[in-house]
């Protein structure tokens, strides 16, 4: 089952009714709201695709006296630039989502963890937060939101590294379990959601879960904001329904010569032309529409591009952005990079690529966090589909 490419305007539409919607939502019971979220089928738009309603319920079930809700705005995935647009256009939706979550899980403090490069957004966001605090006062809700600035490390978009960073430590992912809903920021139960996820919760509370669920296919419900870049005449941010084939996407956004699309950024998968027709953009199967840490990146490459250079570029990125604590990620990324260089220069036989594919697979099953685990996505999908370009 595939869907036609359908452009939507749920996220960015601003009808000026947010106070009424928030008031109406807060008047409903926690159980109703969580049921709605679960019924909507909303999954985290940050990468891992964890069901949002379930996440909130897990945090609500923990009886700790102090809890937190954090909006993850550390949008660091190469090729992703949609969260900053959401925070620019509709910050009140994100804040409203946080307020509803706070009420449900019983927390008084929220944070927006903002990517360092988005410092320019701070005055704008603080205005929105100021208005939001007035609204909270009006609704007699004891909930405050603060901005916490990141320091520029990709890894801090990983939720547990983000907590460490907020606690003033090195941004290094923690062992899981325990999970954030029980042991998050400052060791307290914490809901951490991507910017877009929170904005979607607003839409669900406004329009009801059915309308959201009607969009998309199977396990991929609703719409998704995509950052479209690369060899396209119309780069930009687009809200599209889940479930379209990559072929339909390329027909609409490509320049007529697309040979591959990198779905989900450096941590995502590369899909070659021959598989466009069979690839559905969504959470099903191997291919996801999103990827860690902030998804929705669609990079189109036409036939003038060297996929070796594309991969080299991604690996350069990982070699630098790995936190360095776990072996497979720290050393593995270096070996993958130096390995493809050695094959290209003829210093290692082409069969060495098989050794590297094996290494990528080991990294996928042994790395401590999503970063190291997902290096294999781009590495294997590019090497397997464009082997000649790696060698010659």
């Amino acid at each position: 089952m595939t869907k036609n490419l359908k452009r939507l305007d749920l996220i960015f539409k601003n009808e000026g009714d947010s106070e009424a919607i928030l008031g109406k939502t807060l008047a409903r019971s926690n159980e109703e709201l969580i049921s709605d979220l679960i019924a909507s089928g909303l999954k985290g738009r940050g990468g891992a695709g964890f069901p949002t309603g379930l996440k909130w319920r897990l945090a609500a079930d923990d009886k700790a006296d102090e809890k937190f809700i954090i909006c993850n705005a550390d949008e660091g995935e190469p090729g992703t630039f949609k969260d900053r647009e959401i925070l620019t256009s509709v910050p009140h939706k994100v804040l409203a989502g946080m307020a509803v979550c706070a009420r449900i899980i019983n927390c008084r403090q929220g944070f927006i963890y903002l990517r360092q490069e988005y410092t320019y957004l701070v005055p704008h966001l603080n205005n929105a937060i100021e208005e939001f605090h007035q609204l909270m006062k009006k609704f007699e809700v004891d909930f405050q939101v603060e901005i916490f600035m990141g320091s520029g490390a990709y890894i801090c978009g990983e939720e547990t590294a983000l907590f460490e960073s907020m606690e003033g430590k090195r941004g290094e992912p923690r062992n899981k379990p325990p999970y954030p809903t029980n042991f998050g920021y400052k060791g307290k139960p914490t809901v951490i959601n991507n910017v877009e996820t929170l904005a979607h919760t607003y839409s669900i509370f406004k329009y009801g879960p059915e309308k959201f669920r009607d969009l998309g296919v199977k396990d991929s419900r609703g719409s998704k904001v995509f950052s479209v870049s690369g060899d396209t005449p119309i780069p930009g941010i687009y809200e599209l329904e889940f479930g379209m084939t990559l072929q339909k996407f390329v027909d609409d956004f490509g320049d007529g010569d697309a040979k591959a699309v990198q779905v989900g950024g450096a941590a995502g998968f590369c899909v070659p032309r021959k598989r466009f027709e069979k690839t559905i953009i969504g959470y099903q199967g191997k291919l996801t529409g999103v990827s860690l840490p902030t998804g929705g990146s669609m990079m189109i490459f036409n036939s003038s591009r060297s996929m070796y250079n594309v991969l080299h570029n991604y690996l350069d990125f990982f070699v630098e952005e790995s936190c360095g604590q776990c072996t497979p990620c720290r050393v593995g990324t270096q070996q993958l990079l130096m390995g493809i260089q050695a094959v290209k220069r003829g210093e290692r036989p082409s069969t060495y690529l098989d050794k590297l594919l094996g290494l990528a697979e080991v990294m996928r099953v042994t790395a401590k966090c999503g970063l190291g685990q997902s290096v294999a996505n781009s590495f294997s999908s590019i090497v397997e589909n464009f082997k000649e370009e790696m060698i010659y």
Partner: protein
Amino acid sequence: MSSQVTLKIDSISVSVKQGTSLLDAARSINIKIPTLCHHEDLCVAGNCRVCMVEQKGSDRLLPACAIPASDGMEIHTNSMKVRNARKQILELLVSEHRAECTTCYKSGNCELQELSHEYILGENAFINLIPFKEYTIDYYSPSIIKDDSKCIRCQRCVRTCDQLQNIGALTVSKKGSEMKISTFFEKPIYQVVCTNCGQCVNRCPTGALTEKNYVEEVWSAINDEKKYVVVQTAPAVRIALGEALGIDPGEIVTGKMVTALRRLGFNSVLDTDFTADLTIIEEGHELLQRLKKVLKDKDKNVRLPMTTSCSPGWIKFIEHIFPDFLPNLSSAKSPQQMFGALAKTFFANKIGVDPASMVSVSVMPCTAKKFEANRPEMYSSGYQDVDYVLTTRELALMIKQAGIDFKSLADDNYDSIMGESSGAAVIFGATGGVMEAALRTVYEVVTGREVPFEGLNITPVRGMEGVREATLKIDKALPEWDFLEGVEVKTCVAHGLANAKRVMESVRDGSSNYHFIEIMACPGGCLGGGGQPIPTSPEIRNARSSAIYREDTLKTIRKSHENPEVVKVYKEFLGEPLGHESHRLLHTHYTPRERY
């Protein structure tokens, strides 16, 4: 019971307490899962990924050290997937490690080497990363050498320095391929707040952190016919040396060690325990003097509590972190330095050797002693009092180099004049030992009677609890000490600098009111010192501790003031405790240091 979970590991059913890691669950049924970043003394890191195991139904592997066992799990520790991952992870580690195993100081006692030997058959398929990187080797400290090219980033040292010692001299800097273990502003170790305790060295799984060794210097001295080489051995060496020479932890090898030292060619084989007894006399009298000045004379210039001063890691710690408490430190030198000062004066004179031609070597369980011997204050004899400090490990190396079959050696006794010691001196090697030894003497000086504990065993100050308190009531004091009548002497014992910090903070904020505090920088005291055989663990330290207290009970003399050679040195040379000669040779002063 609900607090138990049952799972299967390699098809063997096992029940463990809830919260037990998969690693410990496997160990409980004698399945060994290899580890590198894991250490029993430290928190779980889950960094190296060597301990990965497979759970049935799970695509990704699990780090056994970091995942708690849960009901119904089916774990495989040796599946193809596990073996393949483990081997590749080891290959990765080796690819960023300067593997010069034939010349490496740590060879033969290297966990990476051992695992590579087990898992890597043949040449490493990955690219050797070493030639593509720049590494620093920091060999400027007198105690510790840090070679980044051998580091596998397991962060054991970082966790040791932070959790056990609360120092944070070592930390992680940079990220990705440049991530490394570094210091404040990447300064050399000797320029940062490092106590030289060497606990990091004890826990480093490779040759990245080692003690600076002086083996060649000592061989040269021994082989120089113009030199007269004396050696002293610390209390904690004799109960651990065997471990480095194929003997189980907890065996006392004093006699064999003495034989071995003679065989190595040392001219006089003497005992730090002798000056440990002397320390008790000096420090004990200093305590009594302070008590008198504070309690009787109401002298505001004299500080209590008095703290011990024999652990050089602790000394450097207090100089950096609590410099305002330096007046609380006993001015008594450590036994090593008392020994050094006497060796080139009293002893040289006795045996008719020119102190200029004397080389004084000490064997210590400690890396900070190397720093201590180099302190500018330690020249009381007119020469450097102690020339070279060897760790227990270095001595073991020399014994191996000399081709001595240690296990088969016959026992021998120390030379006389500075070789006799009491049980009180032996227990210096364990946390609480200095306190116990001091109390045995002080109580007797004040009351004329032995401490009121069965067999002189002051058990309340013993044990492995991080901070221990004990009170000793003075009963029927002699007339000279009547001001102490009925006084409850409050004592405190702490080991590991994190615990030392807690105690000193309680002193600073007034929440404690101790008279006397013993602090040892290392966990377990000297027996767990940074110069002791590797590995270390709570179990090993307990075995060493039992050996120390066993050695104490085997001694005919149990109290420092009854050591006949100590009595003699006062009669013939020093005069009286805290006297002029004592002050010149056996006491010192301390230097406030920066916190950064």
